[in-house]
């Protein structure tokens, strides 16, 4: 099979990728709940939980904040396993030898663990069991062809990112470093984009955007059944907006990791003004009147300013998505899938602004704040996938460049470019 042919007939792989992305989304929600409930440090050790092997921690001890933190860890382990399977699946039957090697190496590690840490014998058993499962699974592993090279690398990148993400989460607990929590949150959002992109790239729909072998683009359907180009200015605008959303998520993660509740308790005004007073006397007064039960930290002027920046960036994102939706409709026609996606994106941003307001009005209720986190994740993914599709579609257009050249040059690389 040619290197340029994707995994277009591998529907199980595609649906597994979709499932991985879905679980990643749920995992983001679980992570949001951990921070919203101020429960991130409720399990002080890692990778163990209260001295137990994580998978053997008795449910009777999952009380208070432990429930949120431990559930998050278990879900993260599940997503880690799914990502490993996904990455291996992208290698097709070529993954089998690797799995058999793992079937040998992991039990050896298990024996070493038994010798070095005899009081933690269950860890060794788990290593051994994992190795055994890996070895046995290699005989039943899908015999499909491997995916194209860049897709395989995407799978490897997802695997590495999920490992890094897990270690970041663990170090955030062990080192008690809140700044690592910001990186953990951002890496989580990036990982969600990656898994969603893999789900998209393994879909039949995506492959139908690819030029066919004769060089004619398959229908990336426009208003009248005609393939329409996505102009560079529109693609750039959506890419810029997506990058801005990513920056907004960094600001949001920073605000959440301050563990100080709401720096500004009212909306749309801020302490009753369009721009709040941040003088030392004013901040002292704000703190005197804050009566938080949870996250009872004093707020500072920089925290207030950061929340104001968050609000202003939200406004900028709103106007940018309005422009994107309008331009997409004007350029591509209202029935075009990308135009529809752009309007869906605008709807998401509107819902996200409402959720942001509700977060304040509810005094940062955990479920509302977590929904706001998830809204941010969906907004980022929508923008990123829109870019991927637009770049792919534009690259596939014969009038922009000969399809054969594009196929040979990219093999789907425009999508990767869009994700950078």
């Amino acid at each position, binding site marked *: 099979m040619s290197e340029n042919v994707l995994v277009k007939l591998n529907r199980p792989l595609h649906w597994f990728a979709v499932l991985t992305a879905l679980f990643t989304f749920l995992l983001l929600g679980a992570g949001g709940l951990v921070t919203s409930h101020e429960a991130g440090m409720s399990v002080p050790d890692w990778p163990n939980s209260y001295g137990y092997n994580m998978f053997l921690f008795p449910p009777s001890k999952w009380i208070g*904040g432990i429930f949120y933190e431990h559930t998050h860890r278990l879900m993260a382990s599940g997503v880690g396993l799914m990502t490993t399977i996904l990455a291996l699946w992208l290698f097709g039957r070529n993954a089998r030898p690797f799995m058999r090697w793992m079937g040998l190496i992991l039990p050896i590690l298990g024996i070493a663990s038994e010798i070095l840490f005899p009081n933690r014998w269950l860890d060794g058993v788990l290593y051994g069991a994992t190795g055994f499962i890996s070895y046995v699974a290699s005989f039943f592993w899908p015999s499909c062809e491997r995916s194209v090279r860049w897709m395989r690398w995407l799978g490897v990148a997802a695997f590495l990112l999920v490992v890094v993400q897990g270690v970041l989460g663990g170090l955030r607990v062990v080192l*008690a470093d809140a700044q690592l929590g910001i990186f953990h949150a951002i890496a989580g959002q990036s990982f969600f984009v990656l898994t969603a992109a893999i789900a998209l790239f393994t879909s039949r729909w995506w492959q139908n955007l690819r030029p066919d072998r004769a060089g004619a683009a398959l229908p990336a359907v426009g208003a009248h059944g005609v393939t329409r180009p996505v102009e560079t200015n529109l693609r750039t605008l959506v890419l810029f907006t997506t990058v801005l959303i990513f920056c907004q998520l960094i600001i949001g993660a920073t605000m959440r990791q301050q563990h100080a509740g709401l720096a500004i308790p009212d909306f749309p005004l801020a302490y009753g003004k369009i721009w709040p007073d941040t003088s030392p006397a004013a901040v002292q007064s704000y703190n005197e009147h804050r*009566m938080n039960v*949870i996250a009872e930290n004093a707020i500072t002027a920089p925290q207030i300013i950061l929340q104001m920046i968050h609000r202003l960036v939200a406004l900028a994102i709103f106007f940018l998505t309005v422009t994107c939706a309008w331009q997409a409709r004007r350029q591509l026609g209202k029935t075009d899938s990308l135009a529809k996606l752009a309007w869906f994106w605008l709807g998401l941003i509107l819902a996200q602004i409402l959720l942001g307001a509700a977060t304040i009005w509810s005094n940062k209720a955990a479920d509302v704040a977590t929904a706001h986190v998830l809204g941010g994740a969906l907004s980022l993914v929508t923008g990123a996938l829109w870019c991927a599709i637009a770049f792919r579609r534009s690259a596939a257009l014969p009038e922009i460049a000969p399809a054969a050249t594009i196929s040979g040059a990219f093999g789907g690389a425009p999508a990767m470019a869009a994700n950078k």
Partner: protein
Amino acid sequence: MKKFSLVLLLAVLTGLSALRAADIIGTITLNGTPPPEVPYTPLMNDSTCSAMYTTPPTTHFYVVGPNHELADAIVSLKGVTGKSTGANQPPVVMDQKGCLYQPQILAMQTGQKLVVKNSDTCIHNVHCVPAVAGNPESNQVQMPGGPDLDFTFSQPEMFMKFKCDVHPWMFAWVSVFDSPYYCISDKEGKFVIKNVPAGKYTVEADHRKLGTLTKDVEVKDSDVTVNFTFDVK
């Protein structure tokens, strides 16, 4: 002989002067109406913790008496360091009872031991979050009926946060001083800093919500009274 007696007298007087010490006493009051305390709603949503209460406990950010006396203000001598006697002092004790820290405002010396107990029937984690370099952050598990946890700190720090992440409404604030000259105002707003050597000092009153007030005093051979009034802004 006369000369010797005079020298001896001078030496004794100088020695007595150096040994002179007095107490700094006073009262803390609050001017204005503080915001109302709020109930620990999340505590009541926890089945284990709420079982210990018939009515929801409330926060104690402002402990104010009928005549505006303010408790839980920490009074100390500003800038007096290097005089800690903490290593020889009995430990300060903080308990976890009813899923709350008791007391929530504490003060201790550098080198003094802080003992944290768990009288509850549930797990707590004792998470100490210092803001001053040299005081290490730690996060330790304390099972019900588990052994006490000991903490010592080498650097002075105001309102060091202790929290339980299992029960995120649980907070305590520990202030660490590098001298024995500090105290916490009681429910009548009164405070006494004992045995302050003669000299000029700046007395500082700190309240976690209301900020800091200072006054200059001179200690001679009798007790000095200094009162503070915090304003709710």
